[in-house]
C-alpha cells in the first residue's frame, strides 16, 4: 500500500473514531501514531509520540494559551461580563432591539478579554437572556443573538484559535491579533445591523426598554470595569508595541485582572479556585488537542497527502479564487460537525501549503478567513457549540428555536466573509501598517 493510501485510510479511520465519540485529541493521536508506525516502525512512532507530547506541553510559545484562558476565567468569575452588559444596555437599551444590540457590544468586549467563544456565550447568556426575557424579547432572537455574539471573540484578540493558527503556520501571533480587530468590529456592526433591521420590521420581536440617564451610564462604568479595560489595553498595547511577547501579554493581563478583582473585592476565594480549575481543564483540553494534531500532522506529512494535493490543486484549470472557494466550502461543511479548534489544527497541514505556497494568498489573511468560517460552524446545526452552550444556560428554550433565530446572523457572517474575500486589504492593512514601519 502506498503512503498516500495509508494517509487516506488514516483520515477515514480518524473520522470513524470521532463519530464513535472518541475525544478528538485522542483520535488524532491514536491514528497519527498507528499510521506513523505502519509507514516507519512502531519504535520510531513511540519515540516520536513521546518527544512531541513533551515538546508541545513544555512549549514556551504555547504557554500563552494558559495565560489568556486564565485571564478570561478571572474576568468571568469576578463578574466583569455582567457589568459590561449593564453598561452597554444603559447606553442603547431604550432603542427597539437595543438589548440584543448591547449584547453584541458586550460580547465583543468580553470576547476580547476572554478569548473563548463558549465562555463568552455562557457569560452573556446568563446575563443577557433574563434581561431580554424581562422586556419580552422573542426567545429565538434573544438566544440566537447571544450564541452568534459569543463567536465574535474568535476574531477579536486574544483569540485562542488565532494563537494556535499562528504557531502551527509560523506566523506572528501579534500580526494575527492585529488582523482580527477590524473584521471583528465589522462583524459586530453587521450583527447589530441585522438586529436593527429585524426589530424595525417587527417591533414585537424586540421591544424598547427604559432610557437610562447619563449619570446611570457613567456609574455603570465604575466598580472595576474601567480599570479592566485599561489593563486589557496595556496587555494588548504592550504586545503590539513590542514590549511583551504574547505569553507576557497574557500573564500581565491575568495579573492585572486578578489585581483589580481582588482590590475591588469582586473575586471570592471560591471564585479564584474555580477560575483555576476551569483554566487548567480548558488548557489541558487545548494542549492535548495541539499535541494530538502534531502527532497526526507528522503522519499526514509522511503520507505526502499535502504535497500531492497542492500539486494537484496547482495544476487544476481553475483560477485561484475558485480553488479557494472550494476550500472554504470544505471548511464550512466540516465546521458544522467538528469543533472549531480541532478543525483548524487538523486541516492546516493539508490546506496551508495549497493556499499560501501554491495559490499565493497572504497567510495572515487566510488565518482570519478560516477563523471566520469555523466561527460559522459554531452556530450552525447539528453541532453548533455555542447554541448548545446557550441551551445549557436557558434550558426552557428549545434548540430548534435557537437555530431558527440564527439565520440573520449567518447571513451577516456570510456578507462579512464575502467582503473580506473581495477586499483582503481590510484584513491586512492594520498589521502591515504597524509591523512594517
Amino acid at each position, binding site marked *: 500500500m502506498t503512503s498516500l493510501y495509508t494517509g487516506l485510510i488514516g483520515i477515514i479511520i480518524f473520522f470513524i473514531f470521532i463519530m464513535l465519540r472518541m475525544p478528538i485529541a485522542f483520535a488524532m493521536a491514536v491514528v497519527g501514531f498507528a499510521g506513523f508506525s505502519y509507514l516507519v516502525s512502531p519504535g520510531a512512532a513511540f519515540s516520536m509520540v513521546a518527544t512531541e507530547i513533551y515538546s508541545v506541553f513544555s512549549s514556551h510559545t504555547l504557554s500563552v494559551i494558559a495565560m489568556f484562558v486564565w485571564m478570561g476565567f478571572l474576568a468571568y468569575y469576578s463578574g466583569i461580563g455582567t457589568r459590561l452588559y449593564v453598561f452597554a444596555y444603559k447606553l442603547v437599551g431604550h432603542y427597539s432591539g437595543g438589548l440584543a444590540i448591547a449584547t453584541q457590544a458586550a460580547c465583543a468586549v468580553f470576547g476580547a478579554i476572554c478569548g473563548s467563544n463558549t465562555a463568552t456565550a455562557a457569560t452573556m447568556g446568563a446575563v443577557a437572556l433574563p434581561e431580554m426575557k424581562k422586556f419580552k424579547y422573542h426567545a429565538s432572537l434573544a438566544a440566537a443573538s447571544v450564541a452568534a455574539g459569543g463567536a465574535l471573540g474568535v476574531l477579536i484578540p486574544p483569540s485562542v484559535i488565532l494563537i494556535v493558527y499562528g504557531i502551527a503556520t509560523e506566523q506572528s501571533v501579534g500580526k494575527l491579533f492585529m488582523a482580527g480587530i477590524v473584521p471583528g468590529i465589522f462583524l459586530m456592526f453587521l450583527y447589530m445591523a441585522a438586529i436593527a433591521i429585524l426589530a424595525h420590521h417587527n417591533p414585537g420581536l424586540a421591544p424598547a426598554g427604559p432610557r437610562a440617564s447619563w449619570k446611570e451610564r457613567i456609574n455603570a462604568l465604575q466598580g472595576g470595569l474601567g480599570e479592566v479595560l485599561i489593563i486589557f489595553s496595556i496587555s494588548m498595547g504592550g504586545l503590539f508595541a513590542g514590549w511583551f511577547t504574547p505569553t507576557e501579554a497574557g500573564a500581565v493581563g491575568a495579573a492585572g485582572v486578578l489585581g483589580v478583582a481582588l482590590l475591588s473585592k469582586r473575586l471570592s476565594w471560591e471564585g479564584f*479556585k474555580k477560575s483555576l480549575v476551569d483554566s487548567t481543564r480548558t488548557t489541558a483540553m487545548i494542549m492535548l488537542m495541539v499535541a494530538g494534531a502534531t502527532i497526526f500532522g507528522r503522519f499526514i506529512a509522511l503520507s505526502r497527502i499535502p504535497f500531492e494535493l497542492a500539486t494537484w490543486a496547482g495544476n487544476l484549470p481553475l483560477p485561484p479564487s475558485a480553488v479557494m472557494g472550494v476550500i472554504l466550502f470544505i471548511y464550512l461543511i466540516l465546521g458544522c460537525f467538528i469543533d472549531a479548534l480541532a478543525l483548524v489544527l487538523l486541516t492546516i497541514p493539508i490546506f496551508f501549503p495549497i493556499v499560501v505556497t501554491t495559490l499565493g494568498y497572504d497567510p495572515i489573511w487566510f488565518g482570519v478567513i478560516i477563523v471566520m468560517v469555523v466561527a460559522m460552524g459554531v452556530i450552525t446545526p447539528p453541532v453548533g457549540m455555542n447554541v448548545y452552550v446557550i441551551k445549557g444556560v436557558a434550558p426552557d428554550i428549545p434548540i430548534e428555536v435557537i437555530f431558527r433565530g440564527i439565520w440573520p446572523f449567518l447571513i451577516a457572517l456570510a456578507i462579512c466573509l464575502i467582503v473580506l474575500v473581495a477586499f483582503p486589504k481590510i484584513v491586512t492593512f492594520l498589521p502591515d501598517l504597524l509591523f512594517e514601519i
Partner: protein
Amino acid sequence: MLKEFVTGLSKVLDTIAGLCMVITMALIVINVILRGIFNRPILGTYEYVGFLTAVMIGFALAYCAVQKGHIAVGFIMDRFSTRIQAIVNTAMYGIALTFWTLTAWHLGNYAYRLSVKGVVSPTMQAPFYYFIYLVAIGLLVLCLVLLVELIESIKRAAVAR
C-alpha cells in the same frame, strides 16, 4: 472505591496544576517588571515557564477527563440504544487506555534516556528529565480515569442486556 480514589487523585494533581499556573504567571510578571524597570531579567525564565507549563498540563489531563472536558462529537452516538453506546464506549476506552498507557511508559523511557545521557537545558543547564517523568505520571493517572470509565461502560453494556 476505585472511582473515588481516582477522582480524588486527579483532583490533587489538578490543584498542583493550578498552583503551577499561578507560579508561572507570577514568574513572568516579576520578570517583566525586573526587566522593564531595573533592566535585570530573571535568567532562565523562558525555560522555567516551559517546565512549569509541562507539569501544569500533564497534571491537569486526568481531572479534565473526569469532568469530560476532552471534546468529543456525541450527536451520532446519542441516536443509538444504551447498549450499543456502552459497547462502542467500551471499545473506544479500551483503545484509548492501551494507547495512553504505552505512551506514558515511553515518556518515562524518554526521560530515563535523557537522565542517562546527562542532557540539560541550554540556558540554566538544568536536568529537565524530572519534568518529563512528571508528565508521564500525569498520563498514568489519565489512564486510571480511562480504566474506571472502561469498567463502567462494560457494566452498562452488561446491565443493558
